[in-house]
């Protein structure tokens, strides 16, 4: 997902060093009690080092996902087919930039600067959601991303609004409010093409859905039995619902929506399970997921190169702004 951090990070040995002062143990106890009581933790509160590190990693990764996520769709802003769709897409991609911004700000409260986080992204040390390493090849990809990718993201993000770390939770509340039009505009765009469009457009929509379906299912992260850090995340209230539960919820909703749209999903094993009242789906190719996470997705190199270029091209601008601010300050002081 946008927040695959819990699943793709290495285990760093936990937060229980053998020796610990009495005072620390007491702080830890108080922290645990607060977490168990469902209290929020603020940036200035004491927190175990591993909690801080895990959150920093997850929030910054989430932020990176938002800004890298601007690229595949941004790719179509200049080609949007009507002025209305151009405005909608621009506003949507702009929103994602805002989400990145709120999240960097939340992560900064944990003691890392935006520049440091961006540096980690640009040097390939930090990850972002695997989904944005897939290409947008047709206009229908824009609608499919809104419907399926934002749909999956919303499903994952709503529970984080109750995350134990309050600055993250607050950012997520704002983000979820803004997200509310993203999925709808995507679905609406596809619906118009399917219901009022031409055969060529319908074929374009179906082809896009075919390409995005499986990567979207991967967004929820590895199956629960292969998600070693999930338990800790749940305990901390960083993660609220398990990967498989969210994935199932997403599939169930998407199948019904696909029917309204008149498209199918590329999964011969997709069928209603009367016993558990859910839609069964086929086996996900996790080797593809790990390949994309590991850097060998179709667009990993392009995405990173685009971000690095924007950052490097902008360096003189940022320097100029600072230089001017210094000059103005001196002038005021004089």
């Amino acid at each position, binding site marked *: 997902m946008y927040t695959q951090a819990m699943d793709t990070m290495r285990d760093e040995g936990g937060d229980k060093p053998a020796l610990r002062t009495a005072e620390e143990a007491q702080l830890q106890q108080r922290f645990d009690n607060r977490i168990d009581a469902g209290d929020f933790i603020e940036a200035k509160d004491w927190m175990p080092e591993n909690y801080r590190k895990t959150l920093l990693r997850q929030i910054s990764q989430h932020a990176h996902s938002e800004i890298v996520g*601007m690229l595949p769709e941004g790719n179509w802003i200049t080609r949007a087919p009507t002025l209305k769709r151009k405005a909608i897409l621009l506003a949507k991609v*702009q929103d994602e930039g805002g989400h990145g*911004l709120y999240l960097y700000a939340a992560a900064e409260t944990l003691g890392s600067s935006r520049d440091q986080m961006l540096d980690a992204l640009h040097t390939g040390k930090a990850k972002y959601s695997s989904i944005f390493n897939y290409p947008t090849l047709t206009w229908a990809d824009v609608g499919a991303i809104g419907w399926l990718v934002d749909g999956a993201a919303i499903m994952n993000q709503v529970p984080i609004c109750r995350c134990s770390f309050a600055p993250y939770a607050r950012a997520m509340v704002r983000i979820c409010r803004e997200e509310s039009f993203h999925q709808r505009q995507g679905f609406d765009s596809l619906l*118009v093409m399917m219901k009022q469009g031409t055969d060529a457009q319908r074929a374009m929509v179906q082809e896009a859905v075919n390409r995005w379906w499986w990567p979207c299912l991967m967004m929820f992260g590895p199956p629960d039995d292969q998600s070693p850090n999930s338990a800790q995340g749940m305990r901390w209230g960083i993660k609220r619902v398990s990967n498989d539960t969210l994935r199932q919820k997403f599939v169930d909703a998407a199948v019904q929506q696909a029917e309204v749209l008149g498209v199918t999903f590329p999964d011969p094993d997709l069928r209603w399970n009367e016993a558990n009242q859910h839609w069964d789906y086929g086996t996900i190719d996790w080797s593809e997921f790990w390949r994309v996470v590991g850097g060998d997705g179709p667009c990993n190199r392009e995405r990173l190169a685009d971000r690095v270029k924007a950052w490097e091209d902008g360096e003189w*601008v940022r320097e100029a702004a600072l*230089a*001017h601010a210094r000059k103005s300050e001196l002038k005021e002081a004089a």
Partner: protein
Amino acid sequence: MISSIKIPAAPELTYLLRLADTCLILGQRLGEWCGHAPILEEDIALSNMALDLIGQSRALLTLAGQHSGKCGGEGYDEDQLAFLRDEIDYRNVTLAELPRGDFAFTVLRNLMLSTWLKLMWERLRDSSDAELAAIAGKALKEARYHQQHAADWAVRLGDGTDESRRRSEAALATLWLYTPELFEDDAVDAAATAAGLGPAWSQLHEPWLAEMDEVLGEAKLAVPPAPTFRSTGKRGLHSEHMGYLLAEMQYLQRAYPGGAW
């Protein structure tokens, strides 16, 4: 492939299209920054500006499409006008279509055009066309903000580092060549003034120069000499960049005839 629509040669329609297309094409260029700006905050700011401009062009194109129906042509909607004209029927000033360049180029072009648009909207509030006057009233608020944003950046860049100053000077020198087009009258302006539709463009020159003088002075950038070069986008004769811009912008409408979006 859908063939192009025909635009009647009526001066009032041309007057509207010059303004509508300048907003449209500048909005198109600014949209290119989304995801690629020097700081995240600026991605958002430039997108806002692009959205305002696209909104303005939509209102103006809708109005122009109605005018087209009234002056002997067919009536058109905003998208037919935006996506299905031949290049020669786009009437934006050439300045708007130049590639986005570096950030200094974008900022200084925004400064020039937002100042020009602000002055234009101020006057169009008194248009004999009530619809146009209403569009102007709304757009004026947006243009004022665009101008302020661009002017603040122009000062930061002009009075920032050596590099930002050098880049600003280079951008200014190129952009300035395209500014005479913003202030030269022709038969279109004569007809528009006669009908009370809007000002002759030449009327904007003095106040524009005064405002540019002020900002460039604060940015410690010298106002370039008056150019002898003349661009002609508003008469439909564009730079070579325009064809590529339109190929990209029009591609879906052209490739999916009869499509619904």
